[in-house]
């Protein structure tokens, strides 16, 4: 079992995001008018990040194909909100590469995360919620599992074993064996990394959306996580589906027909994004 203090201390030992990433995020979150040349100079200090930002910026997800050749162009054409989401997504994907060797298959876990993100982007249109923020939050909702795997490998193996033996939801096994779950660990780490508030909330409440007052990105990702599991895309640690809360659906003004008409697009978006991060 991990006590709250142990968890907080352990999170403190997790390597922070690189200083250049933090600097970029601070700049983008500052609310002060941005000098695009300055921003470009910060981003190009991280070659991996630069390459990934340009690759993502030139993908159909952002409506451009081969048009963007520089970070400055990306900033001007896509806007700062998109760049913020790109920087965050790229940084986390680089921290937990798809070919990381662990008990949980990271390729399949990313596949599930991408499917959740794609679902969040598509379903957010029905609810008037920012689709890009929904996508990014969906992409990162399960980073707690990656953090458990990489930084708490031995303890997490026990939780995975319990899940396998009892055929329960993984977060139930985590709570039973570790006294906490990936939502809390992921949220604590996201706080340490100073990710945006809506991402922290989504990570923390994506299994318990009624604990947060204001319907928004958290609720979309909660529904999308279930849709992605329903579609059987990737693997997030168990092969079960949590129940969808009808009150949350009603609050979001979402219904099963909305989900039904979105399935094709969700799968197609997922396939496309996976080719970008593979």
């Amino acid at each position, binding site marked *: 079992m991990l006590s709250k203090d142990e968890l907080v201390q352990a999170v403190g030992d997790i390597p922070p995001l690189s200083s250049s990433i933090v600097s970029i995020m601070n700049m983008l979150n500052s609310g002060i008018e941005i000098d695009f040349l300055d921003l470009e100079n910060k981003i190009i200090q991280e070659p991996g990040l630069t390459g990934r930002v340009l690759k993502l910026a030139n993908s*159909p997800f952002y*409506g451009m194909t081969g048009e963007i050749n520089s970070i400055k162009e990306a900033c001007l054409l896509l806007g700062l909100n998109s760049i913020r989401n790109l920087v965050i997504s790229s940084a986390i994907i680089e921290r937990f590469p798809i070919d990381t060797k662990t008990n949980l298959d990271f390729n399949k876990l990313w596949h599930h995360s991408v499917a959740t993100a794609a679902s969040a982007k598509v379903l957010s249109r029905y609810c008037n919620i920012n689709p890009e923020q929904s996508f990014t939050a969906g992409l990162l909702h399960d980073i707690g599992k990656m953090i458990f795997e990489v930084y708490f490998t031995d303890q997490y193996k026990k939780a995975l074993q319990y899940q396998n033996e009892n055929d329960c939801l993984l977060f139930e096994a985590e709570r039973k064996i570790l006294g906490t779950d990936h939502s809390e660990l992921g949220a604590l780490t996201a706080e340490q990394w100073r990710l945006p508030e809506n991402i922290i909330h989504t990570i923390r409440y994506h299994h318990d959306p009624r604990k947060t007052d204001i319907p928004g990105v958290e609720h979309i990702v909660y529904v999308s996580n*279930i849709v992605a599991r*329903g579609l059987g895309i990737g693997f997030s640690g168990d092969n*079960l589906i949590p*129940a969808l809360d009808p009150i949350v659906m009603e609050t979001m003004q979402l219904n*099963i027909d909305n*989900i039904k008409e979105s399935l*094709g697009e969700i799968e197609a978006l997922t396939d496309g994004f996976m080719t970008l991060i593979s």
Partner: protein
Amino acid sequence: MKKHSCISISDAIDDMQVAVDVIDPKGVCLLRAGAILTSSIIKGLMKRNIEELTIYRHVELSDEERNERLKSIIDEIDHRFSKVIDKPLMLELKSVLLEYRIREV
């Protein structure tokens, strides 16, 4: 079973499903991934100078392979929903997902 395939717009026919968003040379999204092509959509895309499309191709299965695949899909979905079968909303979702998955085979 579906796989991606990049085709010339001149080879596009009705009922093909696009696998990736269709973006025109100016960067405008003309058609979202997952959309089903019709002759008027294809003509419209040609007018907007679209030259290629990425579509889903269906791979033909034998009867035995199809039956096995169907059984596998049904078993998987049954298991996935096994802990929530007493909830009407989940039964509705299960039915939608089953119909979607079976349609692909």
